[in-house]
């Protein structure tokens, strides 16, 4: 398991909220420019635009032959990019103030922490010890997110392949490297504009050239730090911008731009159910309390009503009792009076 997988799994498992910062610390600690991996230096001051590297690349990788032959230098008049059957191109530039045109070779830069590998959702891309960023077509779904992610605009796609389209890019001639051979283009270069070696050694060579010829070179090795560092690096006598190379890439590897968003996953997974469950509980409790209050109000009302009714009844009853008593008293009085009367009349007789 490599570092990316491990960190990815950590993030997915939701181990910590600080995954983003952890991955940052780790990348600084264990990369250090992969000093022993393979690297290539391209020296733009030496390139003569002969396209021998293009031809070698085409042969070594058994790519279809282009219509224009490789010794046809008219091709250089229009800027080109890599394509499904073209892994490397040399473009011609006319920098302002320069007497002669300057050439630049374009191919996959084999980043130390590749954007394509970080972007791939099946891990079809891998950075190897040889220095090569390799691609496994047997896993590729063909989403082309690697092409969106690569800030050098390198990966190309087989758009006209119906059922088995692949992403295509420079392989660093990895099979040749493993046999101890040089990459095809490096071997073919007649001007030694390309040098292959260990990355640490290549950086030393580049520095040496710049130090020995401070007037000839700009004091910058393009790729030493760009996008977190690349295996293919360039030195030049004219500003890199003049060679169509972006100077705004920054030194952060591409993965660092998305690690923050990925580290938010555990927060969402952990916190949302709690929050939503809480909101649900509160709204349910509110409903229940409202219901209880309603119930209570109803019972109270009923109780009050029945109490009232009872009071009224008993009042009525007492009233009725009093009336009755009075009536009885009257009747008794009447009877007594009647009896008394009959007695007196009897005595009179």
């Amino acid at each position: 398991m490599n570092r990316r997988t491990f960190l990815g799994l950590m993030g997915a498992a939701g181990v910590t909220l600080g995954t983003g910062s952890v991955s940052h610390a780790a990348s600084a600690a264990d990369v250090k420019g992969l000093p022993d991996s393979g690297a290539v230096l391209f020296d733009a001051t030496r390139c003569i635009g002969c396209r021998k590297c293009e031809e070698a690349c085409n042969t070594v990788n058994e790519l279809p032959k282009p219509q224009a032959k490789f010794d046809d230098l008219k091709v250089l008049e229009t800027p080109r990019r890599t394509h499904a059957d073209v892994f490397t191109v040399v473009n011609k530039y006319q920098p302002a103030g320069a007497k002669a045109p300057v050439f630049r070779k374009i191919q996959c830069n084999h980043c130390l922490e590749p954007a394509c590998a970080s972007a791939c959702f099946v891990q079809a891309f891998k950075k190897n010890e040889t220095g090569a960023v390799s691609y496994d077509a047997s896993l590729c779904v063909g989403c082309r997110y690697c092409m969106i992610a690569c800030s050098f605009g390198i990966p190309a796609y087989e758009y006209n392949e119906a059922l088995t389209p692949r992403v295509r890019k420079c392989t660093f001639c990895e099979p040749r490297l493993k046999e101890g051979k040089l990459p095809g283009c490096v071997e073919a270069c007649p001007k030694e504009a390309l040098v292959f070696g260990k990355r640490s050694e290549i950086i030393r060579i580049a520095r040496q050239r710049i130090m020995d010829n401070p007037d000839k070179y700009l004091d910058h090795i393009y790729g030493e730090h760009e996008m977190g560092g690349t295996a293919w690096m360039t030195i030049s006598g004219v500003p890199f911008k003049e060679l169509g190379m972006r100077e705004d890439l920054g030194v952060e590897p591409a993965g660092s731009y998305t690690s923050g968003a990925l580290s938010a996953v555990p927060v969402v997974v952990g916190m949302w159910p709690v929050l939503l469950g809480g909101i649900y509980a509160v709204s349910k409790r509110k409903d229940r309390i409202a219901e209880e209050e309603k119930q209570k109000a109803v019972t109270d009302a009923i109780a009050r009503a029945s109490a009232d009714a009872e009071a009224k009844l008993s009042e009525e009853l007492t009233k009725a009792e009093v009336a009755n008593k009075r009536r009885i008293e009257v009747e008794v009085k009447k009877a007594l009076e009647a009896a008394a009367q009959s007695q007196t009349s009897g005595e009179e007789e």
Partner: protein
Amino acid sequence: MTTHASAKNGGGSLFTPFNVICGIILLIGAGLTVLRFTGGLGAVTALDDNNPWGIWIAFDLLCGVALAAGGYTTSAACYVFGLKRYHGAVRPAILTAFLGYALVVFALHYDVGRPWRLPYPVFVQQGTTSILFEVGLCVFIYLTVLFVEFLPVALEWKGWPKTRNVLVKLTMALTILGVVLSTMHQSSLGALFLIAPTKLHPLWYSSYLPVFFFVSSMFAGMSMVIFEGSMSHRWLHHKMDSGHLDASDHVVLGFAKAASYIMFGYLSLKAFGLAMDNRWHYLLTGYGAWFLFEVLGFVALPCYLYAVGARDKNIGLIRKTSILAVLGIVLNRFNISLVAFNWQLPSADRYFPSLGEIGVSVFVVTVGLVAFKFITTRMPVFFEHPDYPDHH
């Protein structure tokens, strides 16, 4: 109206204008499908090595997912926040969401190179550092969740009460799971572009992209519920029972108010985004004018109109505003994935969709419409099934 007539006749003529137009589009779609899977992407699309993503991603994926957000917003409002009066809106919203996500996955079969490998990121090898992995996993699970949420409707229709009653008990858990998954993949769709800071124009690129996408998905979903409601009222009125009809105005007013508030928050976030990276000066460029057109015309304006509509209880105004808001989401997703993407490339290298790509997208939407009509004219979506009153 044709639907009325055919419903009354119990079938009627198959050759209604709706059916004829849909039939033609489906035939064209079938032709394009053959072309796509015999000639490759190049035979149908205008995609190239500089522009690997076109309208099948911009419209079918990004807009499709955002506009299907009505599912989680409505069910959360009803079940989590306890707004019981939204109950009548839940089923149409879940159906729209389910069909929306199903169509997103369907459309992806055209866009990716080897569609039969779409399960690979979940089942074969997991690229966990990829934002797209998060999107894929969430969409896969959420589509399943939506299917289970919708299943009771089909079971009521078919008359399988036992399974239906078991599934209904899961409602609360599924709703919360739906919100969690939606939060993750709605925001991740924005986070997809975080990896390319040098390709996306600085006015649209922001480390807040995931937040922008998530927040805008909320009012996208609500606007879509309002819009879909007004369409359904027009064409499927006869399928609605009094319960649904009574609640619908309430839902429109409630969602207009909520969408207006959320849009206001979204506008503030956009301003924060510009301020954080100090990108104000770009507003004076051509891209700045286009940015302001999007943000003022399609977010600030509908935000205001929704507020006025909610205050005046003006259902008509709210319904018209929902169209503006939905268009605003489409414009935003197009801007981020196409218009402002690769903005530094010379115009000859920029992308413009081919007729074939537009044809497939229209085809996909038509499949959705036909499925929506098929389901709502048969299953208890806009009305309650007589056997299961009061608690779907």
